[in-house]
C-alpha cells in the first residue's frame, strides 16, 4: 500500500465520531480542527508514522501543521525518507 493509503487507513480507523454511517474527509481536511480525532491522537499519530515508515521526526518537523492533513503527512514522510536516503 502507498504512503498515502496507509496514512488514510490509519486515520480512518482512529476517527472519533459517532456517525456510524461514516465520516468523509478529504486529503486536505484538517483532522484536528474538524474534530475527527481527539488531542491524544497527535502523539499516537507520531508514533504510527515513525514506526510504520521507519523514520525519526525531529523537533524541527514537529509542527502540528505537518500532521494536520493527509497530504501534509505524506509530504513529511517523503521528505524524511529522502533525507535518510541522501544521508
Amino acid at each position: 500500500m502507498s504512503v498515502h493509503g496507509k496514512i488514510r487507513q490509519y486515520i480512518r480507523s482512529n476517527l472519533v465520531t459517532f456517525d456510524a454511517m461514516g465520516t468523509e474527509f478529504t486529503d486536505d481536511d484538517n483532522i484536528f480542527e474538524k474534530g475527527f480525532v481527539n488531542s491524544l491522537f497527535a502523539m499516537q499519530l507520531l508514533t504510527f508514522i515513525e514506526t510504520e515508515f521507519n523514520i525519526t521526526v525531529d523537533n524541527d518537523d514537529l509542527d502540528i501543521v505537518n500532521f494536520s492533513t493527509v497530504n501534509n503527512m505524506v509530504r513529511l514522510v517523503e521528505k524524511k525518507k529522502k533525507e535518510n536516503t541522501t544521508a
Partner: protein
Amino acid sequence: MKAFQERLDTVKRFAEAELRPRAGEFEVKEEIPRSFLQRLGEQGVWGATFPAEYGGLALDPVDYGHLTEIIGKACNSVRELLTVHVSLVGESIKRWGTEEQKRRWLPKMATGETLAAFALTEPEVGSDAKAVHTSYKQKGNRFILNGRKKWISFANIADLILVIAAKGSELTAFLIEPSMPGVSITKMSGLLASNSSHLAEIHMKDVEVPDENVLGRVGGGFAYVVNTALDHGRYSIAWAGVAIAQEALEAMVTYSRTRKQGGKYICEYDGVQRMIAESSVNLRAARSLCLTAGRKRRDKHPEAMAETMMAKYFSSKMAMKVATDAVQVFGANGFSRKYPVERLFREAKVLEIIEGTSQVLQPLIAQHTLRTGYRDEGVITK
C-alpha cells in the same frame, strides 16, 4: 536479565528494610531527607529508564513497572518522586530534548544529584491543561515567564522544573532552575496525603529563560510534550495503584489472621473473606492491565496509550477499593496511625485524581471503545 533481577532484588531489600518502615514517619514530618533519596540514587533508581550512555539503567516499560511497584509498595511519596522525576520529566527530556539537553541533565538526574519536578497545574487550571495562564513572551534569544503553578510534587526540593507556559493558544515547555531570578517556591502543607512529597507552589515573575532551555519545539508543548509526559505519568500511576493495593491486601490478610473476635480469627468470617477475595482478584486484574500496557509500550504498539489509560483508570479505582476494605477489616484500628492502612487509604484517593482524573479518562476510554468495538456489518439480528 539476571543482572536486572539482581538489581531489582537489591532495591526490594532496601525498600522493605529501610524505606517501608519510615513511610509513616516521612508523612508525619512532611519530609523525605535528601540524603535518603541519594541512597536510592546509588542503586540507579532515579535513572531507571534513561539510556546507559546517560547513566541510566535503560529499563524497558515492563521492568520499570515492576520497579515502580516495589518502590510504591514501600512508600507512596518516594514512588511519587519516581513518577515526576523519571516518568514525567526524564522521559520528556529523553524524547524531546536536544543532545545537549540530554547530556546536561540526564546524567545528574540519574544519580539523584539533580531532582526534577513537572509544573503544569495551576490554581485555576487542572484537567483543562490547554488553558494554562502562566505566560511567556520572546525577547531576543530569551523567553520571559510570568505566572503561578500549584500542587507541584517535589517542587520544594527540585533542582530542575519542567514548566508549561502559554502564549495565546500556543503552549511551550521550558526547563527552569529554581535559582533563576524571579522564581520563588512556597511549600504546601496539611494535605490529605503526599505530605512528604514536598508539594509546592511556584511563582514566576519576569523569569528570563534562555532559548536553550526550551524543551521540544516552541508551540509544541501540548500536543507533544504534555501528552507524552502525562502518558508516561499515567503508566506510573497505574503501577502505583497496584503497589498500594498489594500493601493493603497484605496488611488486611495479616491482621485478619492475628485478630480474634467472638472466639475466632476474623479471617474466618464470611464478610472478611469476601473482602479479601474481591481485593485479591481485582488486584490481579489491575496488574494484568498494567503488564498489557507495559508490553504494548515496549513494542511501540499503536494502542499503547489507550491501554495505559485503561490500566490507570482501573488500577486507581481498584486501589481505593482495596484500601477502603483494608480499613474496614482493621475496624477501629484502621483509623489509627499506629497501622499503615489509614495512610494507604488516603494515598489511594490521590491516584484517582492525578495525571487525569477518572472522569477525564472515561470519555477517552469510551471514544476508544466506540471506535474499536464497532461492527461494520451492523447489529446481528435473529
